[in-house]
């Protein structure tokens, strides 16, 4: 009889994951801080054309790239003369399950089927669940989705309740939990009991799937506009969206800057039972974006394939009210109901467009489906019922968990800049915390790649950390 206590199951995690992912992560380790990231990414053995073929077999991808002419025209009114880039959006809501997550799921489910697994499990409260179930439906595999859905009073976040409905509509078993990181414990037990495949968001399969998005948008820009994009904005949570997109762009020969955008939920604790239903975004926010940028390996696999600081040129945040406002703008000016969470990057693009000349191409790389529970009306009604103040005014005055302020006019939208060097220092600090030895030359090179800086920068940060450490002692 297996010991299924929390500590015993957590102690077996690496062994459980090894058999549930079909990938031995130890082959990429060499004993230091770093590991062979590119070696791990190549482990799928699939070329871009093969990835595309898998996508097409699930009817995933090949989504339209749309020019948002009215939103562009409006942004230009708030830009200096000659500025205001053309804003384009990749309408990923057109994927079978309604979001770009279909790309992440397709490759994982394909691999699960190839390796002979009978079923797939995924731990997600978001669009990814529906994406995995959708692909499993086509592949004829069983599927379990594990969600964090309710607070301890049994009140469900409407967006997550909707995701459960969608997953069930596509054929999944949905296991719903109250708030807490022990979801991972339940997830491990399910993997062990069923022997199913772990369709983690953070395996090389998941991220290589997203590469098809970056590749596709670059090629579409070239075909439609005769040039590659000048800037791409990606909503950032766990980091896979940005990582995969940037890698795909590079594979298409495009080195344009990729900007991360998250909803600012500063001050809200993600594992808090009482704060769980005081946020109106369940993804695309800083509560995931910051910790996953500075410590990618906190994910559910030994080494995450999503390492966003390697690819991030800038990181901006928007308020909940600004993203809801932008979602309304997309409806009322472009006739498209999408999001809201996926429109975080659109809200950022509205601001960033003003910095670029009018002939520049600024690509928002996703949209997502909307509906009951997800829609901004559903979220705002839920927020108001839970005591959150809602008003129209200056969005800068909002306090996450207490108030939501919808802008009065488009000129109030501001993309707040995150200090990337602060995140880089945090990543280096975290990497050193797990290591007993002083970092060697290979470690410095690894950390430089992890932070998109130089070994000199890393050395300087480490020196500073050691000095701070000595002062504390």
């Amino acid at each position: 009889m297996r010991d299924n206590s929390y500590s015993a199951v957590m102690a077996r995690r690496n062994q459980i994951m090894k058999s549930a992912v079909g990938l031995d992560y130890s082959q990429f380790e060499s004993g230091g801080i770093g590991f062979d990231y590119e070696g791990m990414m190549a482990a799928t053995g699939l070329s871009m054309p093969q990835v595309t073929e898998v996508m097409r077999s699930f009817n995933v991808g090949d989504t339209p790239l749309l020019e948002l002419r009215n939103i562009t025209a409006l942004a230009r009114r708030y830009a200096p003369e000659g500025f205001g880039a053309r804003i384009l959006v990749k309408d990923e809501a057109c994927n079978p399950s309604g979001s770009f997550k279909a790309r992440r799921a397709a490759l994982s489910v394909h691999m699960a089927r190839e390796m002979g697994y009978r079923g797939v499990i995924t731990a997600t409260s978001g669009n990814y669940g529906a994406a995995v179930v959708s692909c499993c439906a086509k592949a004829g595999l069983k599927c379990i989705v594990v969600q964090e859905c309710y607070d301890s009073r049994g009140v469900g976040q409407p967006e997550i309740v909707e995701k459960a409905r969608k997953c069930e509509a596509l054929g999944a078993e949905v296991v719903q939990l109250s708030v807490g990181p022990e979801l991972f414990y339940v997830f491990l037990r399910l993997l062990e009991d069923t022997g199913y495949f772990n369709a983690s968001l953070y395996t090389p399969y998941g991220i290589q799937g997203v590469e098809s998005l970056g590749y596709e948008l670059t090629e579409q820009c070239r075909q439609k506009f005769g040039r590659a994009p000048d800037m791409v904005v990606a909503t950032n949570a766990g980091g896979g969206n940005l990582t995969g997109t940037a890698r795909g762009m590079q594979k298409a020969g495009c080195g344009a800057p990729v900007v991360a955008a998250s909803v600012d939920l500063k001050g809200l604790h993600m594992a808090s039972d009482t704060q769980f239903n005081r946020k109106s975004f369940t993804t695309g926010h800083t509560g995931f974006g910051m910790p996953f940028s500075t410590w990618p390996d906190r994910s559910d696999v030994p080494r995450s394939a999503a390492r966003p600081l390697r690819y991030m040129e800038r990181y901006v945040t928007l308020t909940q009210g600004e993203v809801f406002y932008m979602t309304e703008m997309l409806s009322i000016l472009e006739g498209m109901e999408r999001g809201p969470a996926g429109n975080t990057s659109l809200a950022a693009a509205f601001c960033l467009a003003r910095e670029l000349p009018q002939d520049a191409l600024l690509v928002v790389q996703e949209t997502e489906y909307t509906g009951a529970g997800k829609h901004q009306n559903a979220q705002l009604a839920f927020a108001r019922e839970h005591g959150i103040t809602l008003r129209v005014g200056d969005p800068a005055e909002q306090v996450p968990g207490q108030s939501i302020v919808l802008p009065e006019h488009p000129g109030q939208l501001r993309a707040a800049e995150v200090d990337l060097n602060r995140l880089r220092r945090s990543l280096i600090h975290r990497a050193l915390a797990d290591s007993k030895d002083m970092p060697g030359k290979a470690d410095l090179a690894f950390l430089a790649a992890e932070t998109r800086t130089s070994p000199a920068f890393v050395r300087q940060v480490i020196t500073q950390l050691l000095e701070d450490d000595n002062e504390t002692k």
Partner: protein
Amino acid sequence: MAKQGDWVLIKSTILQPDQRAPQVPGDTAGVPLVQWVKGRLTADADIGQPAQVITRTGRLVSGALVEEAPAYRHSFGSFIPELLKVQEGIRRAMWGGEDRP
């Protein structure tokens, strides 16, 4: 009374407060980790009473019976006047004082 074979929702406690992970914040540590699962009843059961279901992947799961024929109740929510105001403002900013003819 729900009958054997009925589609139901059951609820069970996975971890008691004293079994929760050490890193959870105080408010979460004070409540149990609870799980909800749907499936077909293996035997007749009453609301609130112990029950066992077979889930869609064929797993046997036990808990307390919460709901027979569980429904989806999420919606688009009550009317939010601020969203209407925002829409009007965006149209004005784009097309001028009046909507374009």
